């Protein structure tokens, strides 16, 4: 009788025992699959958690290394501006999620007939009451006031890099003038000059969440404007609006740009990579890391992920230990059989191979089934915690890992637990039994 047949017969005849071993391998590999999937979920979630700290770095003109000049409005720096080219090069670095510029201009808004749109809380001077404190933005979602939740988008969408001639206004102003998303308003910098008028399409409105009356914010010009009278527009619109203002147009460059990284852990490397871009003269610019929030939570966050990782590793390691122990228990109960087989003249290698084949047959069915089961387990239990379910995903990669390592462990366990028995002579084995 050949090895294969013997193994097959054993598995089919000792149905109860085979079923048990099948269940044990099945249960343990399900656990390991869930563990591996959770490990991946942990990595993804931790990355996302770090991402919520909104870590960024700011590139700004280095005013201290540039020279100064005098003009009508006092002295000004002649330092190089951050050109679109530089912005593009830095934003192309891997790991940069988004970037935004921040520059402000006062715009006057009016309708197609030339009637001004009065701002909220007017003070009674017509030329001031239609002024809006307008931020130029590439990705308004990342502008500081939106990030700090001072503003939140209430309708429509944010400004993105491809936008042309669009505007975001406050919900209150929209209500006052009955603006709808998609309406057009006209903006100009100085209505009494030859400045171009640009038709701006309202693509969204924002809500003001913060108590603007708190005087802690009153340290610059922005404090003279109610938050409701803020507006956001894109760089293309600003380029046209600023036609007459040489040196202030977006194409002339920006004075500072914020780059947001998706993983704060990579911040340092990204900064180093940015500083290695040879076409940028870093003597003219400064880089500041904005990672206060991350620095505060970094150690607790890494504690959390190490704890979870250790937990998963312990689970996987212990599962391996258990399966080894169970296999040795299984083989121990077969000393009698082994002795008889040896006495019947079957070689030790053949017996060992038989054991391996038996377990192999069983594992062949256990592994794929545990793949299906672990998917179900992750789904049902994960479902109890809503969002967690989407993260714990058992993939074929996990199955491959379990199969690969599982087969090695099973073989090793069988070989190791067979050694004591196989070292004995048939006679010794049989005498040991009685």
């Amino acid at each position, binding site marked *: 009788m050949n090895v294969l047949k013997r193994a097959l017969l054993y598995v089919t005849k000792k149905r*109860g025992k085979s079923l*048990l071993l099948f*269940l044990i391998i099945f*249960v343990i590999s*399900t*656990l390991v699959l*869930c*563990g591996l999937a959770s490990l991946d979920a942990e990595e993804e*979630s931790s990355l996302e*958690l770090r991402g*919520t*700290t909104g870590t960024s770095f700011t590139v700004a003109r280095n005013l201290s290394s540039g020279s100064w000049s005098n003009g009508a409005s006092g002295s000004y720096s002649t330092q190089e501006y951050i050109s679109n080219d530089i912005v593009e090069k830095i934003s192309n670095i891997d790991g940069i999620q988004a970037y935004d510029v921040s520059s402000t201009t006062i715009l006057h808004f009016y309708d197609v007939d030339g009637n001004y749109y009065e701002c909220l809380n007017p003070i009674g001077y017509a030329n001031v009451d239609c002024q809006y404190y307008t931020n130029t933005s590439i990705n308004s979602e990342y502008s500081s006031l939106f990030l*700090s*939740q001072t503003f939140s988008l209430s309708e429509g969408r944010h400004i993105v890099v491809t936008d042309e001639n669009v505007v975001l206004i406050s919900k209150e102003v929209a209500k006052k003038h009955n603006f709808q998303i998609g309406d057009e308003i006209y903006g100009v910098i100085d209505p009494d000059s030859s400045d171009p008028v640009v038709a701006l399409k309202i693509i969204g409105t924002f809500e003001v969440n*913060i*108590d603007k*009356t*708190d*005087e802690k*914010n*009153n*340290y*610059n010009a922005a*404090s*003279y404007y109610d938050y409701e009278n803020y507006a956001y527009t894109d760089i293309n619109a600003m380029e046209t609006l600023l036609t007459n203002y040489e040196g202030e147009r977006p194409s002339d460059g920006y004075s500072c740009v914020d780059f947001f990284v998706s993983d704060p852990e990579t911040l*340092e490397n990204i900064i180093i990579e940015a500083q290695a871009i040879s076409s940028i003269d870093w003597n003219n610019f400064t880089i*500041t*890391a904005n*990672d206060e*929030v991350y*620095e*505060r*939570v*970094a*150690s*607790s966050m*890494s*504690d*959390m*992920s*190490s*704890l*979870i990782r*250790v*937990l*998963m590793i*312990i689970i996987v390691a*212990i599962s391996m230990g*258990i399966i080894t*122990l*169970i296999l040795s*228990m299984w083989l*121990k*109960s077969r000393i009698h059989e082994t002795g008889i087989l040896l006495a019947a003249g079957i070689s030790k290698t053949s017996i060992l191979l038989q054991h391996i084949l038996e377990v192999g047959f069983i594992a062949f069915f256990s592994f794929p089934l545990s793949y299906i089961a672990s998917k179900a*387990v992750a789904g049902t*239990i*994960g479902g109890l915690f809503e*969002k*967690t379910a989407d993260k*714990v995903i058992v993939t074929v990669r996990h199955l491959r890992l379990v199969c690969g390592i599982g087969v090695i462990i099973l073989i090793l366990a069988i070989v190791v637990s067979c050694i004591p028995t196989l070292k004995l002579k048939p006679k010794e084995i049989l005498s040991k039994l009685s």
Partner: protein
Amino acid sequence: MNLWKRAYLHITRKKGKSILMFCILLIMSTLILTCFAIQSATDTAAFNIRTSLKSGFTINAKSVDTQLEGHIVSGIMDTNGIAADFNLRSYFYAEYYSLNGQLLDITTDGAIEIPEGYEHAGKMVSNTYSNMDTYFLEAGFELIEGQHITANDRNVIIISETFASQNGLSIGDTLVLGGIGETDGHVKVEVVGIFKATLPLDAGVAPSYDLYENISFSDNETYSQLYYHDGDTHYQYGDFYVDDPAELDTILSDVMSISGIEWEKCIITVNDVDYQNAKAILETLQNLVTLIIFVVIGVSTLLLALILTLWVKNRIYETGILLAMGFCKRNILIQHLMEILMVAFVTFVFSFLTSSLIAQNIGEHLLNQAATENQVVETNLAEGTAEKNTETLTSIEVTVSFSNLLLIYIIGTGIVMLSILLSSYPIMRMKPKEILTKMS
């Protein structure tokens, strides 16, 4: 031979098997105990993350007649869950006088107007901690000489570099502040610091008192003496922080039940953006741990049941003989139970040791990691943004608690008994003869 003796003999004679069973039980209980220890440690870590995301609220009591008074502030600070750091601030205007009553000079270049009555006045900001003021945090002010104002300072002032040189003032000099408007209060203050504005004033329309050169910083006592002089301390704004942002709503309602102030006139702003951003994903991580622990417990229970079935199945032969010898079924069943429970008892004692050992190792691993991380932070990012507040964090302890231990013992014993009963059932139903014929 009595039951106990039989069980004992079985364990001691079949050493290999007993050791195996011991190992399996030990591994499982260690695994579950370690899981619990890690779970409570992750809860601490999550709490630390929440604490580090510094959330709080600001009370704007400017519209209340008496504003925030000292006793209200102590009431708030005594509320459960309020963190130790806070900042109280007020904004006002004051005329600057020399000690002998002469009006001091202010900067007027660049001002859009010099309002009447403010020819020698500037904007003043009083803070519990002046280094927490937005001028220093955001507008680019830097202290170039002296010290920042802290909670214990009384009647002190920080002035601008320009104002100091204009009026020949230096650290340690005294000047007099005069209230503007309905008050006629005068307060002597000592110069403790001099600041410099590193960024230009981004406003083309500032009145004289708002120019950076004319701004100065003082303590809340000075503000109260100048504008209230009733012996109490008053504050326009209070910034408070909480230990756990998840409790912010409860704490806020506790705070608002403090009597003695017209809460409806106050504007309360909650500052917990960072926490709100991290909240969902943080909960996901915690759920992940709970999820995997559920799976581990489920799998362990199932495994134990299966293994015990295997163990009982291997003893059909022996059972048959015992039955043939006239032992009753119950007796045999109890023997099996006794055997496993004896092993389990030893296991449980050991599992406490092993899981504590593992937990301790994990704890040390975390400590080492934190130590190396601190070094990394110190050596890199030298710009000084890495200000750690680890001292306020709860240290993470990975320990096996006694209640968890007890839980495992009770549940473990339950599982063992149930598995043996269930797996013995088919054998026990058979007659001795059936069992013995089945063997061959």
